[in-house]
């Protein structure tokens, strides 16, 4: 497979006095620049929060995989290895901003405040979407690749039209970037100067298909120039750089200066989902190599360098993670399937005569079965 550019490990390279973020920019004439350093200006609290959410995310991830093995979830798409992108990005948003996830952003949704049990509804199979998107300003998980990128664009256009200083951030994968919708969205966003940030998680794979079969470009961020929008390529395993880059793009969007494409170079440490067997298409060595760039370990080293991670802090994070895991187990083991009659309730704002009749049929069947049972 194609070797991703090894980006400067900016955060751990930073001196004690502060942290530096590093990324490559696409020049307006289209050229991909060299990695350049940017003052990241993150508070100790923010640096710790990055770690805390990444660690919680890792714990949630492990618990979800276990719940899948035990049948409480039907399937799960792991965030393992991509925590720096999900957390770094989600923390760059303000409460009024919107986040549009794929199916892999469990951690990002969690950072936005959604109860992780509600996030996992899609995977538990009790309903398609589990939380109220309006409440958290997090769109429901999107399974059809790249389709949500257009929704984010449209929402951002609407916010701009209404004069609201709201930004939409959308995730998409290196595979999804090949879909027509990704193209249409970025182009429309650029033309309309929509306050939208396109965060392309390049985790090297689309299920089994490696990046080199997905694109021949040396960087997916190069697409930005073709839309006349700024592009950034950032080390997706470096939470500080992701966070700073996304924050910059969000501010730019909020200021009315339009969308940005950010390619975060990272790696999907697990299989595509719990239903996948990654050993069929990639080597253990490759996985090991990326293991050495683990975003949690790197960020912890940074915190330690700066004296920001004492045992109490780490213990508190650990305990919080355990509590969330316990909550997940309690809520998801043996959870009821939900009321089948609800399937008629959300097709339209009111049930049509046809749906009333079908609902009556199912209700009668259920009543009859209850009598027999």
């Amino acid at each position, binding site marked *: 497979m194609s070797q991703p550019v090894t980006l400067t490990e900016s955060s751990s390279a930073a001196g004690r006095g502060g942290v530096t973020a590093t990324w490559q920019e696409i020049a307006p004439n289209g050229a991909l620049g060299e990695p350049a350093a940017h003052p990241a200006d993150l508070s100790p609290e923010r640096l710790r929060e990055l770690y805390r959410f990444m660690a919680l995310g890792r714990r949630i991830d492990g618990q979800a995989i276990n719940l899948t093995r035990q049948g409480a979830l039907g399937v799960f798409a792991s965030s393992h290895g991509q925590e720096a992108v999900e957390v770094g990005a989600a923390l760059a948003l303000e409460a009024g901003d919107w986040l549009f996830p794929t199916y892999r952003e469990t951690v990002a949704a969690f950072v936005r405040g959604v109860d992780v049990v509600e996030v996992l509804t899609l995977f538990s199979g009790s309903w398609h979407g589990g939380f109220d*998107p309006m*409440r958290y300003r997090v769109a429901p998980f999107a399974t059809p690749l790249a*389709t949500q990128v*257009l929704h984010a*664009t*449209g*929402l951002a256009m609407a916010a701009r039209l209404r004069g609201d200083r709201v930004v939409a951030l959308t995730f998409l994968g290196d595979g999804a970037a090949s879909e027509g919708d990704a193209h249409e969205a970025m182009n429309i966003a650029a033309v309309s100067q929509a306050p939208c940030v396109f965060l392309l998680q390049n985790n090297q794979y689309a299920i089994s298909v490696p990046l080199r079969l997905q694109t021949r470009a040396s960087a997916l961020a190069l697409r930005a120039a073709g839309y006349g929008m700024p592009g950034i390529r950032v080390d997706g395993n470096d939470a500080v750089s992701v966070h700073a880059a996304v924050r910059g793009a969000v501010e730019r969007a909020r200021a009315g200066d339009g969308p940005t494409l950010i390619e975060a170079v990272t790696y999907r440490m697990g299989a595509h989902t719990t239903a996948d067997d990654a050993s069929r298409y990639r080597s253990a060595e490759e996985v090991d190599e990326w293991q050495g760039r683990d975003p949690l370990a790197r960020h912890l080293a940074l915190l330690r360098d700066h004296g920001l991670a004492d045992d109490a802090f780490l213990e508190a994070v650990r305990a919080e993670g355990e509590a969330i895991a316990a909550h997940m187990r309690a809520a998801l083991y043996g959870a009821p399937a939900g009321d089948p009659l609800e399937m008629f309730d959300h097709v339209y*704002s009111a049930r049509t005569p046809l749906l009333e009749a079908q609902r009556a049929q199912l209700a009668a069947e259920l009543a009859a079965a209850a009598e027999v049972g």
Partner: protein
Amino acid sequence: MAVTMAGALNTALHDAMRDDERVVVYGEDVGRLGGVFRITDGLQTTFGAERCFDTPVAESGIVGTAVGMAMYGLRPVVELQFDGFSYPAFDQIVSHVAKYRNRTRSHVSLPMVVRIPYGGGIGGVEHHSESPETYYAHTAGLMVVTPGTPADAYSLLRASIAQDDPVIFLEPKRRYWMKQEVDLPVATEPMTRAVVRRPGTSATLIAYGPMVETALAAAEAGVEEGWDLEVVDLRSLSPLDMDTLVQSVTRTGRAIVVHEAPRFVGFGAEIAAELSERVFGYLAAPVLRVTGFDVPYPAARIEKHHLPDVDRILDAVERSLQY
């Protein structure tokens, strides 16, 4: 006042934008040009390029961004330039427009309208004369509406914009220049009701969109044959007002469905199947279908042989009456 259907639609958009600032109109060439059929004429001048604007050529993009706009609380009314160019947006329509409310347990509703000029009879080149109603009507979560008169064009479009469910609004483009005496604004029957356009007793002609006028002409022509034909205009294809159909056909005992779209799994199949079940005991003859042939829409110079016309409808009536 004599109003064309195109004029009625234009006025409906104008009035909707005037009455509700959440309404935005966009699509290909709808701004400066006012649409290739001029349905959006003057909207950009009146309401500004923020609320009526041209998009890049990207139908999936047009519909997909409308989803996001509707989520944000706007009421987008988008135009897809021709029926055949609604297909690039099919995934967004079927996977999201139709399913968002359900996915989110009604937390998110999508008050949006997708306007599509549809159907043949205008001598169009390939892909400009499609009748895609089966595709949309089969998709749970979409409302599918199509006017047969200028008054309904106005009223149904206003109603579609005003209510909270997503609507595929099919405009019978060959009837854009049809005229009716009517004062706008007008509120016709409720959006999901079928309407008996002509009462009769011999048989029921069931039509919608462009075929309403054809069915009415057939009914007039039938008088000469001594037939008193009832004509029902469906107006809403989904949901479908079966009650009105059942009442009519229970009375007449005979029904003929007319549409331009191909017959096979066409919309007429649903009506025939459902009527056959609901009024089984009352049917003196099977429900007949007068439809376009099961061919890709033919070229302009032979399209007239493809489209249902008065003669074909009367042939079917005769067949029905012979049972």
